[in-house]
């Protein structure tokens, strides 16, 4: 596992040197989207909470950064911290309501949360700029070069991935997987289900917010559409594509999704139609996603259950 991590790090470092401008852009986007997919996977793949609301925290993170940069004129780093804190706080508030519910109620409530966030950003014209969004979010000059921004993103995403790995292999991560497998039984063991779920929800909000504050200076312009349920769909689709319960799932899913997006968008504007069909196919025929497919092929033993043991 450690060897694989080192190889992947080297791959990404070398990738930044060899590829041209277009593919560097795609690679940076891929890294950011990995965080977004991670936030969905932590909830669905590990805790068993199907969330359609991760875009809310993605959007709030980006807006927290952008508003403190443009409206209050703060320097770059405090803006990043404010963005991160605001998305974590929003995850805390909404999570407090959401984690009390389970199953279908939880899914519906997350849809409501993300649409609500979108409407607040959309309608509060005086503060957030409404439909116009916010433009001109330039990173400071030492990150102005695409290569510099790529490596800056790589460092943050790699550390976040390391943290994700640590979370999954900690007792906390194990409790989350137990909650996914059997919620009633885990409560008898003495684990506070609601608090663990809230913890997972806030962590997922943190990862989505991290993706948001990396995304805003990357595209240099943000719009409230970042926070609606179509945007959440991106996180859902990347997570499902990669295999939400595997450690490498988010990165594989985001990689394939961003690559397909860049590739397909050259031919047709009907990208949602195609990704919708792909997800359809994956849910029906390979529930473990791409990572699950490779993993079952490598282990190739029939007695191993497909979803349970990954980390």
């Amino acid at each position, binding site marked *: 596992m450690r060897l694989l991590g080192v190889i992947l790090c080297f791959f990404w470092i070398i990738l930044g040197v060899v590829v041209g401008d277009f593919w560097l852009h795609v690679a940076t986007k891929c890294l950011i989207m990995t965080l977004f997919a991670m936030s969905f996977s932590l909830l669905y793949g590990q805790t068993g909470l199907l969330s359609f609301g991760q875009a809310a925290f993605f959007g709030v993170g980006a807006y927290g950064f952008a508003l403190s940069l443009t409206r209050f004129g703060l320097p770059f780093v405090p803006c990043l911290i404010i963005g991160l804190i605001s998305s974590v706080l929003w995850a805390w508030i909404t999570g407090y309501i959401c984690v009390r*519910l389970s199953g279908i*109620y939880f899914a519906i409530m997350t849809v409501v949360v993300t649409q609500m966030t979108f409407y607040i950003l959309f309608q509060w014209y005086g503060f957030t700029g409404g439909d116009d969004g916010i433009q001109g979010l330039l990173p400071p000059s030492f990150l102005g070069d695409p290569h510099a921004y790529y490596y800056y993103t790589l460092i943050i995403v790699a550390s976040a991935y390391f943290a994700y790995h640590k979370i999954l292999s900690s007792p906390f991560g194990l409790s989350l997987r137990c909650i996914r497998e059997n919620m009633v039984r885990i409560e008898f063991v003495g684990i506070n289900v609601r608090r663990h779920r809230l913890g997972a929800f806030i962590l997922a909000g943190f990862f989505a917010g991290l993706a948001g504050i990396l995304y805003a200076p990357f595209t240099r312009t943000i719009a409230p559409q970042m926070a609606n349920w179509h945007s959440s769909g991106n996180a859902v689709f990347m997570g499902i594509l990669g295999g939400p319960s595997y450690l490498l799932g988010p990165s594989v899913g985001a990689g394939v999704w961003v690559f397909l997006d860049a590739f397909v968008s050259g031919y047709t504007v009907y990208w949602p139609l195609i990704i919708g069909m792909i997800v359809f196919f994956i*849910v029906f025929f390979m529930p473990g996603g791409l990572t699950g497919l490779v993993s079952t092929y490598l282990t190739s033993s029939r007695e191993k259950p497909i979803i349970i043991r990954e980390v």
Partner: protein
Amino acid sequence: MMELIINQLFSGLVRSALYFLITSGLTLLFGVVGTLNMSHFSFYMIASYVTWTFATLLQNYQFSFWAAFVLSILVMSIFALIIEFIVMRRIYERQLGEQLLITFAMVFILDDLVKIIWGSNPLLVKRPDILTTIASYGSINLPASGIFVLVLGLFSGFSTWFLLARTRIGRISRAAYSYKELLPALGIPIHQIYLAMFVLSVFLATLAGVAWTVMGMVDLGQAQSLLIESFCVMVIGGMGSFAGTAVSALICGLSYSFAILFFPGLATFFIFLLAGIILLVRPWGLMGKVGRLH
């Protein structure tokens, strides 16, 4: 002051009728089959577009809108049958998460198909003269289109209630949720019940779609703009409870139309707040059953 209240009351009732028309189909499918169809709103939007198509095709004839009304119900029912055969019957037995994911993927597919077929410009359905009139009593204005939506809501509410509560098919359908294994053992074809319920839910979405065409423009955002309210209506009323949906649609519609009077930008947020509070106190909704929470 009195006139203002009556006007707001009327518009609130019309809004409640629209909420009810959209949400009742969702509730019905969930209450009988146990599947939540995330793409229900896409069916509602497609119904509006189909109505526009027929109304435009037949615009030189008399009663073109009413013909479009009937034809769109017909077309949407056939469409529902096709979707049932291709997708829905394969997911009834699956896990909740997979059901939600598949119907969520369907949202993207259907929305994009709408964009391919009808383009992304807002369209306006030509309304018949009788629906453009406004009945005025002093300063109380009751637009005929609102009355039409209200009648549609009341009619569909009563007929669905009658179907569920007073007929043999309704009793079987209500049993289908709790006694999934027992019904086939009694010789009742449960998959035909599921099929009927899905078509009925799309039929209710179609009524909502037609109702929307007399209230506003047909466009790609119309499904999204009602998403929060409808899900909140569903959650407040209690999932799978038909009467609860009616009551909470009334509550949400009225509170929306009065909230918009005092805080114009925050009316939707108000409904969200209402749903949040009710979920904290009664997670199973006003009229839902505790056992149905999962």
